């Protein structure tokens, strides 16, 4: 177990390093970040340019720049955004709550619809319930989220004018702005949970201890919820990491469509402006989030299911 944790931790670090290094090299290759100033309309003097290059360490070789960035980041200083010179760390962490807000809402929605539907579909296998459930799962899996978002805007914001088309509300409980983006983001997640729960549930329902429970006369509801469901839940719980990647990449799209002021939205702007400190930070946060979730679920897996032993 200990060896496993150490190994996993090591590879988590490698993941973060590789991701940030790739983005670092690529964004440098994509062009001179100082071009931003030239395009900003303010212009820049030659002297100012030299000073800025020195300050941003743009005159050093790229590996050195990366090492410098890494060193500063580990100390909590992620540099400044290129154009308006705000501290990147603050800019990113300002956007983080919005993304988490949306992600958590979508996660809850997909979890709370997907799992009961998966159970229903498995218990009533081969009936109209099963087919309807699976059909909706296929739908959710295939629909491009950016398109679903647009269609929802078209129907609920333009046509019926029930929900606002874009932007985030003020407080945490401003549900009105949250509804459409949440549904859009949850569509794929719901499909994922429904399918994984259904498969797990079908497997468990055919196992011997469930048959035994039935044979000794345990009531149907108790068999399903107490004997089968508790064991089938392991799969969707540990599948959370997969779902999380989905929500992360999904948030980039959904936030773009709904002008949601989160990290994904900011990342797109950063890419278009070649604002590499911001991009770097976003990739850093995304990868850390993903890697640590993978790590946690691996551990969770071992705790939930004592049969699993990592060597």
């Amino acid at each position, binding site marked *: 177990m200990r060896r496993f944790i150490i190994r996993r931790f090591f590879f988590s670090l490698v993941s973060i390093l590789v991701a940030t290094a790739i983005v670092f090299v690529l964004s440098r290759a994509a062009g001179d970040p100082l071009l931003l100033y030239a395009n900003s309309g303010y212009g820049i003097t030659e002297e100012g340019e030299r000073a800025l290059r020195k300050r941003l360490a743009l005159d050093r070789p790229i590996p050195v720049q990366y090492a410098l960035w890494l060193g500063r980041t580990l100390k909590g200083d992620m540099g400044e955004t290129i154009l308006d010179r705000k501290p990147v760390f603050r800019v990113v962490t300002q956007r983080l709550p919005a993304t988490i807000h949306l992600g958590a809402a979508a996660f809850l929605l997909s979890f709370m619809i997907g799992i009961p539907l998966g159970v229903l579909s498995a218990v009533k296998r081969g009936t109209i319930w099963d087919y309807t459930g699976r059909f909706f799962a296929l739908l959710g899996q295939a629909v*491009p989220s950016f398109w679903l978002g647009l269609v929802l805007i078209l129907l609920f914001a333009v046509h019926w004018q029930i929900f606002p088309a874009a932007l985030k509300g003020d407080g945490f409980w401003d549900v009105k702005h949250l509804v459409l983006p949440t549904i859009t983001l949850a569509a794929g997640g719901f499909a994922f949970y429904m399918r994984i729960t259904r498969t797990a549930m079908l497997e468990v329902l055919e196992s011997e201890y469930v048959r035994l429970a039935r044979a000794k006369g345990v009531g149907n509801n108790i068999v399903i919820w107490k004997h089968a469901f508790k064991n089938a839940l392991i799969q969707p719980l540990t599948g959370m990491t997969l779902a999380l990647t989905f929500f992360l990449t999904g948030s*980039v*799209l959904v936030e773009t469509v709904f002008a949601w002021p989160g990290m994904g939205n900011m990342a797109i702007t950063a*890419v278009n402006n070649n604002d590499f400190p911001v991009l770097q930070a976003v990739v850093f946060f995304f990868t850390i989030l993903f890697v640590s979730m*993978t790590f946690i679920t691996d551990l969770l897996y071992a705790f939930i299911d004592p049969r699993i032993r990592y060597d």
Partner: protein
Amino acid sequence: MAEQVEIQKTTIAAETGRDAGERAISQRAFGSQAWYLLRRWPLLPIFVMIVLLVAGVFAPIVSPSDPIEQSLGFRNFPPTWGRANPEFNVTPDAADFDLETTKGRSDFSRAKKNAFPRQKFVLGADNLGRDVLSRVVWGARISLQVTGWALTSGIIIGTLLGLVAGYFGGWTDEILMRLVDVWLALPFILIALVIAQLFLHQGGASVGVVILLIALVAWTPFVRQVRADVLTIRSQDYVMAARVAGASSLRVLRRHILPGTFSTILVVATLRVGQLILTEATLSFLGAGIPDPIPAWGKSVNDGRGFIEEAWWISVFPGFAIFLVVMALNFFGDWLRDRLDPRLRQLD
């Protein structure tokens, strides 16, 4: 003779004696028969896939008009059945057309009939007056091209790595599998966006770049599944026998192990196509995909974003095409998996 008659009678009796639900399919009501067929065979998905193939391969013949040609007088022109919205649409100037001799309910439809062959703008025109239907048809072509190449390279790379990892085991296996893990943890969309930017600055992205980007995500599931297959096949007696008989590693891999992984590869590939089409559409939507002026579905959806109020058809139809195709492919993949390799059920 008499015996035969006797036997026939008993079988008939047995058939009619069963429950109504278990009677021969041919005796059921039409709706029930259709439902049975649809459940048994993926007819609708196959139909969609055929339409996709025909549209993609024969795009120049099938598409009603040029997907790139702009008719600026017909910007945001509604579909054939739609009504003109004078507030938003650029109405064709009635003076340009001979309205007296053309039949139609409104000036608008008359103007359209007069100006174009009937099949033009069936699904409306986009913000630059390009035919939406033609763009959807040509979009199928580029989608097939990109995913076709990306998937092929993904299959080759993934299978090779999977074979190597599974067969040699040990450190090779460890390194390759961790590579896959690290790869899966990368925020691919952001990286793809940066790469696209890179080429944007260097004289424009190309279809080749998009194929490369999609290929970068295509290969991972093949490594895992092929490796799992190899691990089971490797310990089979016939593989052992081949090794004892002195076959080289290469020969064992090629002649004895690789053929055993074909069904897995087929299933994984089918399930993967849909995801790749979706990825390509996503990149195109974000502006990191297919370059202008080549029509692509994701790009068309993005084109219509700013016009969702006045011209919903620009976004809705190409998006629906993505949706339909991906759904059909996923459905077909599921069916194929249940048929060929139920063991892979863990895959999703």
